């Protein structure tokens, strides 16, 4: 069975994400003392094969480093994927006042710091609006200095359809950008749709 979302539901997902990503951006902005440029998030039902295309579609063409983190609440489960452009690290190190050498280790530290802010605040922001509290798993590094394609190959997908929410973050006047992808399992979508319909009613 294919779970689909209608236009009203998509609009609602978009608005809820918009609020949550704004809260995450606010946290990052205050931490780094910058302004984060916020676009309109993309919301789509996609298949495992399309995930590959969605990732390839991200504006990041250079080498990337990525972290994923699972989240779960009653009947709703998903995975947050933060894909960070490797070119962002030098500016990020300056903003974070990072004094150590910018090797793989140093980059990893910065990546973990940013991902915990962006993923954590975003997931919490979405949960708050549904009045549910997500438990977050440990962050896992998917790869460093790799190509976006490799991220998907390394994954073992056991689902057919997923709701993908794609957020592109960019810091004003800085060479820092990343993509946050929120993927909800197919079963979760039916459950969230109920919540959405309640909000839309």
């Amino acid at each position, binding site marked *: 069975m294919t779970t689909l979302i209608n236009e*009203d539901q998509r*609009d*609602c997902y*978009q*608005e809820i994400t*918009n*609020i*949550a*990503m*704004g*809260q995450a*951006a*606010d946290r990052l*902005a*205050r931490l780094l003392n910058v*302004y*984060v440029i*916020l*676009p*309109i998030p993309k919301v789509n039902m996609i298949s495992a094969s399309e995930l590959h295309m969605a990732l390839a579609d991200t504006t990041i063409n250079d080498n990337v480093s990525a972290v994923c983190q699972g989240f779960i609440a009653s009947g709703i489960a998903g995975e947050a994927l933060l894909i960070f452009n490797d070119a962002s690290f030098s500016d990020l190190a300056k903003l974070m006042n990072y004094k150590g050498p910018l090797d793989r280790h140093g980059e990893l530290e910065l990546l973990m710091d940013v991902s915990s802010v962006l993923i954590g605040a975003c997931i919490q922001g979405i949960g708050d*609006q549904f009045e549910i509290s997500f438990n977050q798993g440990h962050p896992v590094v998917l790869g460093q200095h790799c190509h976006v394609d490799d991220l998907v190959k390394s994954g073992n997908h056991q689902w057919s359809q997923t709701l993908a929410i794609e957020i592109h973050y960019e810091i004003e006047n800085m060479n820092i950008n990343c993509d946050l992808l929120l993927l909800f399992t197919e079963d979760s979508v039916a459950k969230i749709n109920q919540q959405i319909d309640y*909000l*839309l009613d």
Partner: protein
Amino acid sequence: MIIQGFRLLLKTINLKATQIMALPVLICDDSSFARKQMKRALPDNWDIDLTFAGNGLEGIEAIRQGKGEVVFLDLTMPEMDGYGVLEIIRKEDLPAMVIVVSGDIQPDAQERVKKLGAMAFIKKPIDKEKATQILTEFGILSAAE
């Protein structure tokens, strides 16, 4: 003398008419869900003439037509964003009191819209309490309403 008296009478009638007419309020947001949320957050029994706009361009058009003396404005929108709307309102000196209602709650965003002439900033998600508080604070909503 008679003509002058007549003019005065006309003016008074005009003034009365403006007072009787409901306040033109505009909700400008690209999300239909957000527009609905905003509408729900407005105080009950508030005598207004409500108009909706789905992006900044539609918003400006409505304001030019006098449909937005009070505007609830989103920031992130296609076609023209909230910043663009504020700039045009200022440039053309349009009669609109703007309350920005946005998910972009960064300190910079709040500062920028205030500089561009927005009267107030409300964080999304909006609720009735916040909306009523701001409207009362700026004297748009009298205690009686």
